């Protein structure tokens, strides 16, 4: 049961990255690209957490934690730039 769920998670992450890259290439506005990159950030954090379970080394979760904090900062900076702040 757990193996099935983990395989489903890998497949969903795969298609999320594929469609995120497609939106990044096709996106006509800047906001579309920023949203696509925010999506891929969240998906990458999920991938790191999933790989930590796959490899059995839970020190990898620290990377996901650090990246979760910093990606929020990056998207916030881009949003402030688009609103004439920063």
């Amino acid at each position, binding site marked *: 049961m757990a193996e099935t769920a983990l395989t489903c998670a890998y497949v969903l992450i795969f298609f999320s990255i594929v469609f995120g*890259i497609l939106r*990044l290439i096709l996106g006509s506005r*800047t906001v579309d690209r920023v949203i696509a990159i925010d999506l891929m950030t969240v998906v*990458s954090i999920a991938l790191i957490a999933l790989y930590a379970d796959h490899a059995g080394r839970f020190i990898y979760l620290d990377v996901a934690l650090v990246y979760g904090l*910093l990606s929020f900062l990056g998207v916030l900076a881009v949003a402030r730039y688009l609103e004439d702040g920063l």
Partner: protein
Amino acid sequence: MIEILMILLCAGILISGILAVRLESMVGAVVSAGLASLFAAVTYVILAAPDVAMTEASIGSGLSTVIFLYAIRKTRGED
């Protein structure tokens, strides 16, 4: 399974690098360069180097995006 994702991540690094060079919009180019760093960090984790991945995620993807946007704002003031 993880090998297929690894190939996809490396293709994503290539695509975002090409987009960072070719995009007209400045913000789009900066954000695409940040995405290349993000996928590189995930690749480092899969290659069993979590300390390198943490440094890449904090400096390459977090700090450099903010500093690039700040520099664009200071120098040009337009998109």
